[in-house]
């Protein structure tokens, strides 16, 4: 039963006119309309005049009568260029149609002939696409002979491999869709499957690329005719006119330049139109123009409405005391500003904390709470247009807000990033990656730096460090890379390790190794640790003190030991309650914090946690509490309603 199953078209289709209203689209379609109109009308209007021999005006330069001069028979070159539009375009379109047809046949060979023949065709196409089109066209020109027909065939065949490759990719994309399998099971013939189910789904990209391909064919044809292999006299296309004109470039430059200009304009017309449509449908095109897109920073749009929260630069209420010698990091009112399309957003809005020598401070919070940005800001790793301001930001007693601190940060501040798989340069050896900072900051020789790198790899428990130092990152496992990252931090003499989710990407047993190693390093040299994590249990386990962040601010600052029982902020308590433990009743749904984290670009008035807080009252919704005595809450430590947070699973 040849069921005619619907072949869904998996592509959202914006309306065409809208897409062509972009500058690219307007230019492209405008030019294309001009070229096609000329192709249609010029031979009708000036066909005769362009052929008119005028022996009185042979080989003239530009004049009032003949703007672009005349050829050896006194024919007007401007008119000839205009009239040549039709032949040039028609031949290009014919060659493109041929290329698409052959490409389609080759590209769908696996569907039509079965997988084995298909593989053979694919292999052939893969070899053919490696050769430049012009070389293929020249070879085919040998077979099909010199002249219009031979050139159409040559350019058509030469263009086929690229389209075949495109079709193979497109067909492979739809070949394992369910509706195709269903059609096959229903006994629908191969040709019918191709026509009814595959082509409608690959048609869009094919048409777009054919449009761009027509531009290429136009240029190729001009090339062949220019070489004398294409259109033969008395017929003439742009390439032919260029060839005739080149000999006279001293006398009449326009004779060669005008048809050349026409070729560029027509080529652009096809290209730009194709690109505009391709971009509108987000189709990949064969040509490279689409590479232009991208690169610009994607900014988050701030929703209209909501009062602009601003960075709240009010100084925090804590008592000022001198930065003692034991203070490694001293941060006051740290603000991170990210420019957006509609002004600015403040993902970190006035964070204040200190880290003492040897102390381990954890920063917890949900995604988007600003904890990672805080860490990067402290480490001076944020780049413009993101900006960092603070009332005070000092590391090891040095003010990081002014001056150059490369050597200090390069030797005394160690970073451990979240994803060890991507944090090392894939094309450089591990030893060198560890050594280069030491060579730069400490002036070690290559030999010394390498020895130190090997020593540090050994100290982070990497076996055979000599051999490992000569390997590339992909030869290390994830856990080894994270240990090597810690080893990298130990190349100097770190006073602080900033670890941003150092164990998140690792499995549980490896997590333990990395955490133990961090603890060991800390004890050995009294190194402080700033541990960023969304995992409350890890922080409680490793750290002395915990900063709880929400919506870009510290909402609670408390000793890690008090986390389980002594937390006062409702958010901290909800975080702690959400951690499953061995006694958790698995038959009940896991506890979650109701609602969603706030968008830093769209903060509500009042306490940002209020919309999710069971204790929130009118004041909470209008006034934002400051961090006082380690908690930023209007109702700290009050009893939570019985139902929350355990059953708030909505």
């Amino acid at each position, binding site marked *: 039963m040849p069921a005619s199953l619907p072949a869904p078209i998996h592509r959202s289709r914006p309306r065409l006119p809208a897409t062509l209203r972009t500058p690219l689209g307007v230019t492209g379609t405008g030019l294309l309309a001009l070229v096609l109109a000329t192709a249609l009308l010029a031979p009708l209007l000036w066909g005769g005049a362009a052929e008119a021999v005028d022996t009185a005006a042979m080989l003239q330069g530009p004049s009032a009568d003949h703007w672009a001069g005349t050829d050896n028979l006194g024919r007007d070159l401007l008119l000839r260029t205009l009239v040549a539009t039709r032949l040039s375009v028609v031949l290009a379109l014919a060659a493109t149609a041929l290329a698409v047809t052959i490409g389609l046949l080759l590209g769908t060979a696996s569907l039509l002939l079965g997988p084995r023949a298909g593989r053979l065709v694919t292999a052939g196409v893969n*070899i053919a696409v*490696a*050769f*430049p089109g012009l*070389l293929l066209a*020249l*070879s085919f020109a*040998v*077979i099909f*002979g010199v002249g219009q027909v031979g050139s159409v065939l040559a350019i058509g065949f030469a263009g086929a491999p690229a389209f075949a490759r495109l079709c193979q990719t497109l067909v492979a994309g739809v070949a394992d869709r369910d509706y195709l399998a269903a059609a096959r099971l229903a006994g629908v013939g191969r040709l019918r499957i191709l026509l009814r189910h595959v082509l409608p789904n690959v048609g869009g990209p094919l048409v777009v690329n054919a449009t761009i391909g027509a531009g290429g064919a136009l*240029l190729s044809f001009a*090339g062949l005719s*220019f*070489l*004398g*292999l294409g259109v033969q006299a008395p017929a003439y296309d742009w390439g032919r006119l*260029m060839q005739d004109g080149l000999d006279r*470039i*001293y006398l009449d*430059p326009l004779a060669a*330049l005008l048809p*050349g200009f026409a*070729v*560029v304009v027509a080529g*652009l017309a096809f*290209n730009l139109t194709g690109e505009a449509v391709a971009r509108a449908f987000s189709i990949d095109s064969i040509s*490279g123009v689409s*590479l*232009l897109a*991208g*690169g*610009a*920073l994607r900014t988050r749009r701030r929703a209209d409405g909501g009062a602009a929260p601003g960075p709240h630069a009010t100084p925090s209420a804590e008592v000022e005391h001198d930065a003692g010698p034991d203070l490694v990091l001293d941060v006051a009112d740290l603000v991170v500003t990210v420019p957006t399309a509609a002004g600015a957003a403040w993902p970190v809005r006035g964070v204040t904390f200190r880290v003492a020598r040897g102390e381990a401070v954890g920063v917890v919070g949900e995604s988007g709470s600003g904890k990672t940005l805080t860490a990067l800001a402290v*480490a001076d*790793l944020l780049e*413009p*247009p993101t900006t960092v301001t603070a009332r005070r930001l000092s590391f090891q007693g040095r003010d990081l807000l002014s001056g150059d601190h*490369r*050597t200090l940060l390069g030797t005394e501040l160690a*970073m451990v*990033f979240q994803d060890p798989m*991507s*944090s090392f*340069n*894939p*094309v*450089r050896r591990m030893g060198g*990656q560890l050594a*280069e*900072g030491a060579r*730069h*900051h400490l002036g070690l020789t290559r030999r010394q730096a390498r020895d130190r790198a090997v020593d540090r790899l050994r100290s982070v428990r990497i076996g*055979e460090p000599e051999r*490992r130092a000569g390997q*590339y990152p*992909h030869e*290390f*496992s994830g856990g*080894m890379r994270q240990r090597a990252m810690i080893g*990298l931090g130990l190349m100097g003499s770190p006073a602080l390790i900033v670890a941003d989710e150092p164990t998140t990407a690792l499995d549980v047993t490896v997590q333990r190794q990395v955490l133990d190693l961090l603890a060991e390093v800390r004890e050995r040299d009294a190194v402080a640790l700033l541990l960023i994590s969304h995992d409350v249990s890890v922080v409680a386990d490793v750290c002395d003190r915990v900063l709880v962040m929400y919506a870009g601010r510290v909402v609670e600052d408390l000793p890690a030991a008090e986390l389980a029982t002594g937390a006062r902020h409702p958010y901290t308590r909800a975080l702690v309650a959400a951690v499953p433990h061995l006694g958790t009743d698995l038959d009940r749904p896991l506890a979650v914090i109701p609602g969603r984290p706030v968008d830093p670009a769209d903060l509500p008035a009042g306490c940002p946690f209020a919309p999710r807080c069971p204790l929130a009252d009118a004041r909470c919704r209008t006034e934002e509490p400051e961090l006082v005595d380690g908690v930023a809450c209007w109702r700290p430590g009050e009893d939570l309603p019985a139902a929350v947070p355990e059953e708030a699973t909505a």
Partner: protein
Amino acid sequence: MTTQTPTTARPAGAARPARPAGAGTGAGAAQHRWLRFAVRRSGRLLVSLWVLVTAAFLMIHLVPGDPVRASLGPTASAELVAARRESLGLDQPLWVQYATYLRDLLTGDLGTSFGSQLPVADTIAQRLPATATLALLAFLVAVLVAVPVGVAVAVATRRGRAPRTELGFASTSVFLATIPDFLLAVALVWVFGVTLGWLPIAGQDGAASFVLPVLALAVGPAAVLARIVRVEMLAVLETDYVRTARAKRLPPSAVHLGHALPNAVTASLTLGGLLLGQLVAGTVLVESVFAWPGLGSTIVESILAKDYPLVQGTVLVYGVGVLIVNTLVDVALAVLDPRSTIGES
């Protein structure tokens, strides 16, 4: 994890190991990997070569009618045609001709030109240097301009900085990339040869004569390559490992050139290799504009004159040139990026 023996010459895509890199791969394994890469890559080269040679051989036989008659013209006597056919071996069975063709190729015999009656190999040997020099110079110019420009523009315009520079670069590079090389050649002839009179416009005569042909060939690929390098560089600058390099507080030049550039170039090379092949073929048209005494002029003249042995030989040489370029690109990739030797790309 046991390392595969290099005798499995073609592990293909399926054998790409997920490489749970916990287990070490020693120096021996690294050598095996290189050996495997060499075997696989030269295997591919040989297959491509064989396809190329066979296509070149078949080319003559696909010409409709009798190529000798076509070449000698309708006025030639039947005896002459028959004699020429016999001397070319065209009276033999196809497979004998094929075997002879392959055997001659291996000894460097590319046949005899219909026109000049000289060995094709001699003509090619005489013409090839001019073309090879042109292509090589153009390639060097393209790379030496495109890579620094692409890197500099990427660094200057990343994260939405210097939007005017970005716009200027984008429009200039698109414009330059769209102009086909032979049209650019004509425009260059007009500007620098005719209007300004600074540079010679035809023939190969001294260093000055190289300027315009090399420019005509290099500008388009340079524009495309610069765009590719910029896009790749922008992507690489946002990676974690570049952040790690910045966390080492290296000077920006060390971060950009030492860490970002090798990765950006690796990615650019894959696309750049295709450009390079096109550049080799582009010499045909550009040589025609500048009356360059190279292979490009030879191939056009021989096609027009139906001098089939000469066509066959030149097409073969161009094809081999492209294959060599592609292979070199793959080798360069393997050297730059140790991961690419692991499996089929």
